[in-house]
């Protein structure tokens, strides 16, 4: 099968979630906008405030808006004593709703303001009450303009919903983000095409409603609305039978995470579980999602939990560190650390081999005096992470420049000379294939990054699940992981994370046969 058709298999489920999210946001946006429109029409001062606010929201990049709801909801949840989910549907819904409001509000308010004053005078003159005037005259006359606004909002919302992937809400964005990270362009294309087709279809249906209203063909408007409603209902179908054995596996936004998620997912599917993936989660949100039972399990790295979640800056030997993390996770969050997978994915400063040789750099200490002449390329998070601060405390590095890249592009930047040093990952297959020199850390500033398998509090006593996963513990050598990662990351003859996971399973002797 072609990679594109292969990728299209993931579409129906994500499309349904995508449509539900966008339509829920549109409906909520309407519910908020309509009263504001009526109110604004009666009060120009309010109209200025509401339109000003809605325009302001529109200037915030949608990704940032989504990200802002995460801490906001966390804070709110803490305020009311917990229970408000900061990840997934809710933050996505709220951010997209804010996005949907402006076009609806603007069209409604200007539409009302542009009504023929004579018609309004006549409505008053024949003795309509304020409500009758709204219902019989203003609403029907403003409806076509309002519908145009609703169409704009629908297209905008469907487009922006792809970004909800980053806060853990499944959408067609899952395919786009995963494809972008693994350079699986068929996946990206399938995601984009589906999102665009969805937007076009919804827009066309709403267009029929709009024309039906404008030309007073009520039947046409109702039929189009009914088709849309049926579509939304059908989209909820996968959500009806809550399979009791559904396991949601989280993954961050790089190839290794996708491969490991599939490795675990395939194993669970063979045991009869229904598996869902929430991929592309940021490091900062994924542990919270697990602690909140929004995902059931995922693979993290010891150093990440150590520095980001536990806020530790001291360095311990690998085994003691993993044990300490296990105690802490159980005590503080009820999270079970099932065990390390057997390989490390540490931050590893890497340089082009010839470059390192020519400059005589083998360790981070050697890098210090040379750093003012060198450009650092980092992944998207690294420069803001405590590890970077810790490394700089140990080694006073002063690079000529430091730029964040998506992981894939970071390696390319090193190759092309846009960067001289990168914050690579020790399990990355490209270290070997790109002939990179990994610099040693003589002052032990970089903590160890054992891959560890974490289970949500809801599965603390799930012996069946633990038994299924335990064979993975200490069973994945770093060479195998590197190779699997490279299968996905390489530029030609790329494998999908599914294929790489199957290969890895066989390689470590846990394949299906």
């Amino acid at each position, binding site marked *: 099968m072609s990679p594109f058709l292969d990728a299209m298999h993931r579409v129906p489920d994500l499309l349904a979630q995508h449509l539900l999210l966008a339509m829920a946001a549109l409906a909520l946006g309407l519910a908020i906008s309509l009263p504001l429109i009526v109110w604004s029409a009666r009060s120009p001062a309010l109209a200025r405030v509401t339109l000003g606010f809605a325009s302001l929201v529109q200037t915030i990049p949608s990704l940032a808006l989504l990200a802002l709801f995460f801490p906001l909801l966390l804070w709110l949840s803490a305020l009311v004593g917990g229970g408000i989910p900061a990840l997934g549907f809710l933050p996505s819904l709220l951010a997209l709703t804010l996005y949907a409001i402006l076009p609806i509000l603007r069209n409604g308010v200007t539409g009302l303001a542009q009504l023929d004053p004579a018609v309004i005078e*006549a409505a008053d003159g024949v003795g309509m009450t304020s409500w009758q005037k709204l219902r019989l005259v203003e609403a029907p006359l403003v409806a076509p303009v309002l519908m145009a606004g609703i169409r704009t909002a629908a297209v905008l919302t469907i487009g922006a919903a792809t970004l909800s992937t980053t806060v853990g809400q499944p959408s067609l964005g899952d395919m786009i983000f995963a494809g972008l990270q693994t350079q699986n362009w068929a996946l990206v294309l399938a995601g984009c095409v589906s999102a665009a087709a969805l937007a076009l279809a919804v827009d066309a249906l709403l267009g029929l409603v709009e024309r039906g209203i404008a030309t007073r063909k009520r039947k046409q408007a109702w039929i189009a609305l009914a088709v849309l409603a049926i579509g939304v209902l059908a989209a909820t179908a996968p959500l009806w039978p809550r399979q009791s054995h559904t396991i949601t596996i989280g993954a961050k936004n790089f190839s290794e995470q996708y491969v490991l998620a599939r490795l675990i997912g395939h194993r669970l599917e063979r045991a009869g579980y229904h598996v869902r993936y929430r991929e592309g989660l940021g490091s900062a949100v994924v542990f919270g999602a697990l602690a909140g039972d929004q995902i059931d399990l995922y693979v993290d790295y010891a150093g990440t939990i150590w520095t980001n979640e536990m806020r530790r800056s001291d360095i311990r030997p690998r085994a003691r560190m993993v044990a300490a993390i296990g105690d802490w996770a159980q005590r503080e969050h009820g999270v079970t650390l099932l065990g390390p997978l057997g390989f490390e994915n540490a931050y590893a400063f890497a340089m082009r081999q010839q470059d390192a040789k020519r400059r005589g750099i083998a360790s981070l200490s050697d890098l210090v005096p040379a750093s003012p002449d060198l450009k650092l390329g980092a992944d998207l998070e690294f420069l803001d992470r405590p590890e970077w601060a810790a490394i700089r405390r140990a080694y006073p590095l002063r690079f000529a420049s430091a730029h964040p890249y998506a992981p894939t592009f970071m390696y390319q930047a090193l190759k092309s000379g846009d960067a001289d040093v990168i914050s690579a990952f020790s399990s990355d297959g490209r270290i070997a294939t790109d002939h990179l020199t990994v610099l040693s850390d003589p002052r032990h500033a970089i903590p160890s990054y054992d891959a560890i398998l974490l289970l949500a509090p809801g599965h603390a006593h799930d012996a069946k699940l633990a038994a299924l996963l335990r064979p993975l513990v200490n069973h994945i050598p770093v060479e195998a992981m590197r190779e699997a990662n490279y299968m996905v990351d390489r530029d030609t003859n790329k494998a999908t994370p599914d294929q790489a996971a199957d290969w890895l399973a066989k390689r470590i002797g846990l394949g299906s046969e």
Partner: protein
Amino acid sequence: MPAPPPSSLAVTLDSVTRCYGAETAVDDVSLEIAGGIFVALVGSSGSGKSTLLKTVNRLIAPDAGTVRIDGADVAREPPHRLRRRIGYVFQNVGLFPHMTVGENVAIGLRLEGRKPGERIGELLDLVDLPRDFASRMPDELSGGQRQRVGVARALALEPGLMLMDEPFGALDPVTRDQLGRRVRELHDRLGLTTIMVTHDMAEALLLADRVLVMAKGRIVTDATPAELLAGKGGAEADALVAVPREQAHRLAELERRA
């Protein structure tokens, strides 16, 4: 003068004042309008005549003074109830563009929760429009036809009082004359009290029983057409009457020579 028809409403204005910022549009006007008469309110633009008219159905609330209809203060009932008892016709007509002619005419009945039944046809008869116009949309009508619909709509709830704000201002002279006569006829037949704002003295003289001339927010003349033509209306009124009279004389002269 014959006794007023029982349905017609009397209007009383008592020291009515309305300002727009520093501008006084209506300046302390007191006025008695008996039931059943046709009053024309004449004046140049900005004289305050439209503002004065709209205080009667409270489209404009006066800053001071009271308006009474058959003795009852109009401010004491909800404006929509008041307006349903009063017909209102204005220059821009304001037909509801998304409703058919029939729906426009019957809107008052709908507001009252009444079935239109035969009433739409009767109302279209009253304004000389074919009954099959009921299914047309307003944008398919000529200006004159539209204003006829406007008049029919105003008559739907059998009001005792008609307020007309430059009702024929946008019409061609022929239509204007026809519709003017028709309105006067309906006034007599249906037993209405009519107050019509116009800037056209000839129209006022030909249609009204009583002509009020307004200038700078005050009523400067209050007379019958006969009195005005006899020069008893004062300087302001004389100047307004002189124009159509002069035109009539010149037309008569032309006719004589032809």
